[in-house]
């Protein structure tokens, strides 16, 4: 979920319950205020001079909507004056006729008769309706409603009984215990309503208070805009930096938390850069060491091969052992070559120096490399190349070693009197096929597909000769794959193994052949 949407939803999720809670609290408060006002009004009406007397004088007629009284007596009981007593009852209970009139009409008439209530600008509820009861909750007035349930239970223990959860509605009904605690007017039921409308106790009655809320909401979203924008830019910058191996720094703007984040990213990038550089240096050093060691090994190995040749040329006895020693020396050379090649292609991104390579000359070089040892081992090694040069775009070291491995494999896994042939041909238009075929023991068909696996050795090969890590054909396959050259193993009709390199010829100037210029 996007940050902006999440924040908007969170704001809404927090604001709405808060508003609902406030509105509910307001409803409860309004209801309580109405109940208190009603209780105060009732007590005042009953305690004002003649209030109780009027009720007890004729309890069966007392009740209903009363006119406005004189208000509650002051805290310190005001002494009754003669004036008060002489004041005519202004609504000492409605007459039957009045009670039977439709309420709207009666109310309007009562409104009209009564002096307007003191106006403080607030709406008010409908006028109170009172009924008197004795302590057994019986009323002499037949119009009085029956009291039961929670109200009856509550009055037993308190001075003023109210309905639980009455705030849900606008109706207010309370039962008030009179201080005299006896007679037909010991309890008074007061009915009324809360102020019309649905707010006003705690929240302002008009909805102007929603305005700051909406403003807050808008402010949150507006303030978030630039923040989201900066985070997006930072993300983009970090992504760019990461795609370039953290080579480019992450731009830092501002010194707030986002600025901090950018700085942290930048520091992490620098650290990664430093680690990568250290790794590159180590790898380079290792590569350099390997190249130098290869060079250092190759010279004494060449000298050793020279000595072995020399010995064999002059040997009367022990020729078998000398040939075996030569084969081992040749094998060591192949391993060292493969080691160097493996170090190259095992790099995370193998660096290919692709140049046009004359495949026919490459085949000649490979044949020349292995012919002396093939001759000693009694394996007839021959090669055929087309008259016209075949060129491919390749890393000459890698491709030569790949072909060399396959050819050496054909010689090594062969027997005296066996054959190995390398055949380079143009096939189907602009493609070439380099086929290395031998008539050695070959490989069971089931194992053909696994030949290129690293470390794989055919059981047939294992029983005859230990074969190092089995890197040769694996390297051939890897190099072929790196160059987009196909490599296929098959069993030729006469037995043995047939390996085909197939690929696209390169047409253009060959860099590794200046032969034409010198002939």
């Amino acid at each position, binding site marked *: 979920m996007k940050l902006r949407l999440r924040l908007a939803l969170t704001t809404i999720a927090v604001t709405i319950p808060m508003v609902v809670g406030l509105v509910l609290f307001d409803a409860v408060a309004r209801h309580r205020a109405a109940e208190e006002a009603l209780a105060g009004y009732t007590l005042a009406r009953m305690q004002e001079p003649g209030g109780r007397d009027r009720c007890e004088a004729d309890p069966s007629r007392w009740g209903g909507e009363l006119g406005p009284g004189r208000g509650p007596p002051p805290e310190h009981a005001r002494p009754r004056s003669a004036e008060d007593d002489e004041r005519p009852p202004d609504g000492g209970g409605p007459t039957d006729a009045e009670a039977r009139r439709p309420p709207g009409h009666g109310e309007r008439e009562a409104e009209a008769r009564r002096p307007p209530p003191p106006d403080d600008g607030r709406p008010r509820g409908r006028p109170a309706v009172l009924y008197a009861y004795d302590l057994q909750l019986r009323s002499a007035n037949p119009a009085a409603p029956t009291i039961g349930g929670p109200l009856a239970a509550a009055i037993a223990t308190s001075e003023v009984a109210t309905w639980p959860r009455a705030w849900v509605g606008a109706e207010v009904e309370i039962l008030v215990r009179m201080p005299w605690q006896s007679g037909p007017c010991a309890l008074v039921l007061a009915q009324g309503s809360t102020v019309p409308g649905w707010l006003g106790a705690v929240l302002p009655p008009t909805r102007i208070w929603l305005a700051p809320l909406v403003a807050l909401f808008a402010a949150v979203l507006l303030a978030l805009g630039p923040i989201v924008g900066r985070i997006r830019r930072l993300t983009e910058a970090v992504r760019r930096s990461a795609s370039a191996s953290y080579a480019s720094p992450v731009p830092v703007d501002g010194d707030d938390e986002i600025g901090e984040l950018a700085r942290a990213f930048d520091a992490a990038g620098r650290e990664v850069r430093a680690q990568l550089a250290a790794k590159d240096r180590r790898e380079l050093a290792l590569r350099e060491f390997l190249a130098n060691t290869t060079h250092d090994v190759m010279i004494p190995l060449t000298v050793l091969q020279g000595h072995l040749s020399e010995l064999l040329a002059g040997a009367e006895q022990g020729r078998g052992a000398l040939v075996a020693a030569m084969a081992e020396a040749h094998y060591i050379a192949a391993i060292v*070559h493969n080691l160097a090649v493996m170090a190259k292609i095992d790099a995370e991104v193998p660096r290919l120096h692709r140049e046009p390579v004359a495949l026919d000359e490459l085949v000649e070089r490979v044949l020349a490399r292995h012919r002396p040892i093939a001759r000693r081992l009694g394996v007839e090694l021959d090669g055929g190349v087309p*008259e016209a040069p075949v060129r491919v775009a390749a890393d*000459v070291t890698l491709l030569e070693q790949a072909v060399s491995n396959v050819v050496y494999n054909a010689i090594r896994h062969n027997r005296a009197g066996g054959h190995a042939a390398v055949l380079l041909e143009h096939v189907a238009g602009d493609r070439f096929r380099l086929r290395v075929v031998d008539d050695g023991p070959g490989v069971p068909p089931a194992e053909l597909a696994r030949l290129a696996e690293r470390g794989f050795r055919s059981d047939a090969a294992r029983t005859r000769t230990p074969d190092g890590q089995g890197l040769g054909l694996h390297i051939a396959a890897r190099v072929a794959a790196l160059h987009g050259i196909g490599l296929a193993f098959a069993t030729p009709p006469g037995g043995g193994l047939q390996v085909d390199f197939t690929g696209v010829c390169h047409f253009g100037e060959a860099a590794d052949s200046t032969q034409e210029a010198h002939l």
Partner: protein
Amino acid sequence: MGERVLVIEDDRELGRQIVLHLRRAGYEPTWWTEGRAIAAEEAAGLALVILDLMLPGTHGLDILRELRARADVPVLVLSARADTMDKVGALKLGADDYMTKPFWPEELVERVRARLRRPALQRSDTLTVGPLTIDRAGRTVQVRGRAVELTRVEFDFLVALARRPGAAVTRSWLAEQALGPEREGSERTLDVHASRLRKKLAPEECIETVWGIGYRLRVEPSP
């Protein structure tokens, strides 16, 4: 006197061996153990240069660059590093060939020989390969001076082989040259012709069967 070969190799033992084997093969080697520029007068009489790359003094590639500015003498580079840049660099600077160490002495000699071998004069109508003399215009063949009667196919077969003496050539290519393109079962037919041709050229074993490839016209007289 053999052809003169300059060997520039800093390793004493290896240099000694190279010189020894070249001398045995009939060449006249000169050996330098340090890298330095080859002067024009020194280059003049040389048939070939065998050049190691990593040398004390001047680097092999620099020697090559300077040499190529003056002379076309063939250069065979010795490389001990599995470094493509070295090889490609050497070839781009005008080296003719390179050999990767380690190598067998006979491999070296073979490569020198291949480099110094004069290609057969293809423009001439008469080809001489070993004991064979082939007159392409007159369509006649002589074995050590003895004329041999050949059919048209046999003659074309022999000429096709003689175009690349010493090289193994495929049956399909030979069939195309001698029998014409795309003939049914032509490779079998070719073997029959080859067999007849061999009998006519006997006792000289000029035509060799090469396993897995086809035929080859032998360059050196049979051992």
